């Protein structure tokens, strides 16, 4: 019996010839990523150990991205703890360079790896053919001390993509549609694997966006095959070489296979307060907004900024509406600067922020008040996620967000 990509990566990490869904295996981890959301808690637990030690500091990547620059004495204390520990222990450390998953994709992840990240959206690394999964501090600490962990091999839901997305329909619309279709628990503890002829029409930016959001369907991880597009991205980003390139075997077992024709996808939004609370954009048009956000690990890449800029060029942000544009990394920021995109956004009246999680995280910048409405390319729209517990977050694509920022209400991306 053949294996899925997920099974092959775990088999590699477990040093086993074959593994099957449902089994539990002891594995060696390739990377352990942690950000300023929880690293200070991990450090506290580490310091209480009888014999604190780090198995392999080369595996650790620490990234300050949630509150950048720091906004309060409390978070300053948490970040100082993280910064000092990283310095004292020689841990790879980034601060202000971008959102953690974007940094990992740009600089570290290679195909075939098994990676733990102390952040829900670690499943983004599947775009590079790596098994990324989110863990809490306890799991992180165990991995940090031993270099390994335990994993249950997930069943796989396979998505066979054909065709091509139409104009102004994005990968974000695709993955929101899928989450709406299978539900917020539809992929609980599963791997979501994306294959098919349609993959050649999806850029690395699209692929990261798709894999990144799979956790919102409950997935443990998301996975894609490595192709020329993946290899070109790795080459452009430091000339990185794959550890291993896996494809599911013909006789691998999938719990279910979904066939999706990309040309049938339409612009959608997730309504408050759940990511699977889906509606076509046309159904919610006219909802007044107070703020629009273009950024995050889901949609803060250069392709998203290009799309947003192409729509807002020559227009103005609506009166009394704030439009935050937040490139996902310094690399994206500088590229956007070179292409004149930031100028287009500023000309329209948008605020350009430094690379960070921004209002997607609802703590640092751009938080919204009671009764306010945000249209966002962020990852989540849970109650209170972007600020006051009585505020409302709609999730949509870069195109929908940019168009809505001009209109001052949610509109179709075809409006301008």
């Amino acid at each position, binding site marked *: 019996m053949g294996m899925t990509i997920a099974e092959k990566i775990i088999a590699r990490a477990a040093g086993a010839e074959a593994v099957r869904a449902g089994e539990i295996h002891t594995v060696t981890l390739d990377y352990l990523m942690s950000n300023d*959301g929880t690293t200070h808690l991990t450090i506290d637990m580490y310091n209480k*150990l009888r014999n604190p030690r780090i198995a392999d500091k080369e595996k650790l990547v620490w990234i300050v991205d949630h509150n950048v620059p720091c906004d309060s004495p409390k978070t300053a204390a*948490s970040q100082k703890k993280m910064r000092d520990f990283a310095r004292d222990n020689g841990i790879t450390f980034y601060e202000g360079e971008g959102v953690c998953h974007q940094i990992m994709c740009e600089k570290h992840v290679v195909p075939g790896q098994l990676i733990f990240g102390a952040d829900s959206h670690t499943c983004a690394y599947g775009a590079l053919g790596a098994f990324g999964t989110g863990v809490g501090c*306890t*799991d992180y600490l*165990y991995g940090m001390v031993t270099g390994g962990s*335990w994993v249950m091999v997930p069943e796989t839901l396979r998505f066979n993509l054909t065709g091509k997305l139409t104009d102004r329909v994005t990968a974000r619309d695709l993955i929101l549609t899928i989450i709406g279709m299978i539900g917020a628990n539809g992929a609980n503890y599963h791997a979501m694997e994306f294959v098919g002829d349609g993959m050649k029409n999806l850029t690395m930016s699209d692929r990261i966006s798709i894999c990144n959001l799979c956790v919102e369907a*409950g997935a443990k991880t998301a996975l894609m095959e490595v192709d020329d597009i993946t290899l070109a991205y790795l080459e452009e980003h430091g000339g990185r070489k794959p550890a291993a390139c896996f494809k599911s075997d013909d006789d691998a077992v999938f719990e279910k296979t979904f066939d999706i024709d990309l040309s049938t996808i339409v612009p959608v939004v997730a309504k408050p307060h759940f990511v699977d609370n889906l509606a076509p954009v046309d159904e919610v048009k006219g909802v007044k907004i107070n703020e629009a956000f273009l950024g995050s690990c889901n949609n803060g890449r250069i392709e998203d900024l290009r799309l947003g800029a192409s729509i807002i060029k020559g227009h103005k942000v609506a009166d009394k509406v704030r439009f935050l544009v937040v490139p996902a990394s310094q690399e994206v920021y500088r590229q956007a600067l070179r292409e004149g995109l930031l100028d287009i956004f500023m000309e329209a009246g948008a605020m350009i922020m430094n690379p960070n999680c921004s209002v997607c995280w609802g703590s640092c910048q751009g938080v919204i008040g009671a009764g306010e409405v945000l249209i966002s390319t962020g990852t989540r729209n849970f109650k209170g996620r972007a600020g006051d517990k009585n505020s409302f977050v709609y999730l949509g694509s870069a195109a929908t967000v940019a168009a809505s920022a001009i209109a001052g209400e949610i509109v179709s991306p075809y409006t301008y």
Partner: protein
Amino acid sequence: MGKVFRFNKDVDTDQIIASQYLLYPTVDEMKAHTFESLDANAVLKALGVRAVLAPSFARIFYRNSINIGLPAIVCDGLYDAVRTGDEIDLDMEKGIVTFGEQTFSCTKLPVHLQKILDRGGLISSLDEM
């Protein structure tokens, strides 16, 4: 042998703490923003629960459980076969649940993971390595 307590739905820990409060420097400061049960699994363990069996688990619950030394076992079919008060036998090494004449296959826990459970969970096991 252990006594069965059958529940309707599994516990969801996802909403216990709003994520932005995680940035606070200490757990004590975060506690002000959590529901009463900071860790649902720890509460179950403290109540004397020896294992949690279910057809499926939300991932956070599953990992938390094993990590604090409370076995979480995936077992199909058992849920519909038992009622509260029934006595069942769980063999984690073989991956078998026995209820009277009936047997159900369940998750096998590798020796390595058994050791973690025996030592009271992930962090306790680090102290004994």
